[in-house]
């Protein structure tokens, strides 16, 4: 039962924060890229020459998972093997995972929807890729802000 000893609470909290920061945006990105991929394949079955355009649009919502990974990595980096984190630092690191986790998830899902619309736009008119990318990247902004906020909170631990 040493695992539950009081000294380890801080470390466990930090690990939960790291897991949260990656798992939640990871789920969001998977859903979004998956749905966009289905649309993209549909477009390609009609016109294989649009591969590059739809591939770029499909890949856009994957960045939230990358940001989540970055935050998780930074939080885990704060844990030193053999040294227990104190409760305060652990709680801060746990909280640091929340902005990235929650905002990243929502941002990925909605960016996925915009990407799908963009893919449909490319299907209808050849040159719509740039516009589609611009529209989709507007949603990305909030994930980037969440990344920075989480990053700043980690700095305080």
């Amino acid at each position: 039962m040493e695992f539950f000893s009081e000294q380890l609470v801080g470390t466990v909290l930090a690990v939960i924060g790291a897991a949260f920061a990656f798992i939640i945006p990871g789920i969001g990105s998977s859903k979004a890229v998956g749905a966009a991929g289905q649309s993209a394949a549909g477009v390609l079955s009609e016109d294989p020459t649009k591969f590059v355009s739809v591939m770029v649009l499909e890949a856009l919502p994957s960045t939230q998972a990358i940001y989540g990974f970055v935050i998780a990595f930074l939080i885990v980096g704060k844990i030193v093997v053999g040294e227990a984190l104190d409760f305060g630092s652990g709680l801060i690191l746990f909280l640091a995972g929340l902005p990235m986790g929650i905002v990243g998830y929502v941002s990925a899902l909605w960016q996925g929807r915009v990407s799908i619309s963009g893919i449909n736009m490319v299907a209808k008119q050849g040159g719509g890729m740039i516009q589609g990318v611009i529209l989709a990247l507007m949603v990305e902004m909030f994930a980037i802000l969440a990344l920075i906020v989480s990053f700043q909170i980690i700095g305080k631990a």
Partner: protein
Amino acid sequence: MAVVEMHKLTLVGLNAEKGRLLERLMAMGVVQVNDLDLASSDVLTKWSHLVTKEDSASVVEELDIEIEQAKQALDRLARYNGDKKPMFFPKRTVSEDEFSGMAQERPQYRHMVTEILRLGREQQELQNQKNKILKLISTLEPWQQLDVRLDFKGTRYAKVTLGVLPLIANMPRINEEMAEHVPASHLVQVSSDRYQHYVMLICHNQYLAEAEALLRKHGFAPVSFGELTGTAAGNILRANQEVAALDKAYQEKEAQIAAYSANKTKLELYYDYLGGQREKSLILTNLAASESVFLIDGWVPKVLSDDVERKLTQEFTCIVETREPTDGEEFPVLLENNSLGASVEGITAMYGLPNCREFDPNVVMAPFFIGFFGLMLGDGGYGLIMALGALFAMKRLSLDDNQKKYAKLILYCGISTMFWGLMFGSWFGLAYFAERPLWLNPVKDTNTLLTWSLLFGVVHMFVGIAMRGVNHIRRGKYIDVLWDVVAWYVLFTGFILILLPWVPALNLADPSVYTDVGKKMLLIGAVVLILTQGRASKGIIGKLLSGIGSLYDLIGFLSDVLSYSRLLALGLATSVIGSIVNEIAALGGLNSIIKILVFCVIFIIGHSINFGINALGSFVHSIRLQYIEFFGKFYQGGGKPFQPLKYKTRYVNLKD
């Protein structure tokens, strides 16, 4: 560095010279011909019953067919290039004489194109025949060992039947059953392959029915060769000879087509000539013509108008008149900028071309766009790659004008990124450089960089407001500059001064000095704006209400300024992800060759992804800052692009 001024051009010429004159105009490539609406044209109101528009639809249709054929012939010849197709092939330069000389040579090349296409069709025909024979050979091959003629049906008393049995049929057992139940019969197994057994049944006429019934039980199916006579081997031999003959004929045709590839450059010229003719025919429908004269209504850049007028009146019997556009008249927009301004023309064009009487914002926008891009990407290593890539593209690939502009933009953005990389000490996220920045390390001094980002934003927007003033001055509304520019400066500056104590990393000793001045400025600005911003509205109350409403822009200003925090956010994202890529790559240590290889692979893949995500992001968000925060302050847009009549060539460049 501005919108090019245009002159209105009106030309009346003789129908007899129409074709030649249009060709001359296309060669010059500086005159836009307007689509003349007969019903509402101010020139023709009185005379519209005298003029008609030419219908050239049938000519265009014929040209379309000829162009399509020329394209097919060129595609057919493309395989004699020798080497693989380059991505950007340079256009050949030809003189105008050579180009127009194509008019005489056109029938010759048209004939050549039909010849090439005919040879291609004949080749296809030969190929079809060959395929048929090859198929026959493959059906005959299993019977090759059989030295019985295929059309041999049997003797007076015995019957010979050829057929197939499925692979699962048990041959020894069938033979046993035959021996037992059907006397005077013999089954010969000729051959077997992956699909079935090939057999010959010899049987006395009397027992034929029984033998066939027995075999059918095992899945026997008779095979017939129709008209073929002689043995299978003989037939195969003959078929192979035919194939060889067909191959030879095919090669001959191939050589004939290949011989035409010497004329490929001429055929390309022919193709572009046809494209020009098609363009000309399309334009004809835009011209009004009476029985003997025609009218062109169009635009020509002011600097060239005298030149064009002189050339045309010298060479043709025509009347040309050029004049300044009237005040309300919209003219098409052509932008002329220096290299820096021209590089962002594509970005502005995506938003919409400037209105024809507006200041062209490209030169002013370019430094902001490029600077913000660099700040947001912020890693000198990525900038170096971009700059080198752009330089390579400009030197080695032959790009058209538009592609050149984008290559330049990438070059400038790369240089700007390198500059910020130096300032932030960020090169591929390597820790060594991060400890030695020229200015500050964004990861450590986040607050300082945030303050600076917002300050850059304020400068950007103040320049935008100044542009509004420039447009006012261009329209001669000098006094409005006071209300629409200066008053806003006073208001916003006051607002900023009041907010100063809350700005992070500023540590003012006595903020009250600034806030006092700020309050006064805010008040003066607000009063002036309330009194003036509603001046377009009707009635004193309406004026006041829209004046007060305009103060809402203060909230807009605040959110606009905060929007520039993305400069910091995106810049941080690049360096944080970059340093983590390095950390992951070096996780295993660097003490063996394999570990160093792993490091290199992760380093390259990780930085490629980081570069891809963030370069795209920086580009889009830099665009966004221009479109919403900057253009929103002054830009009207809505210009129509200048589309001069010219040869749109694919293979050749026309030398003037």
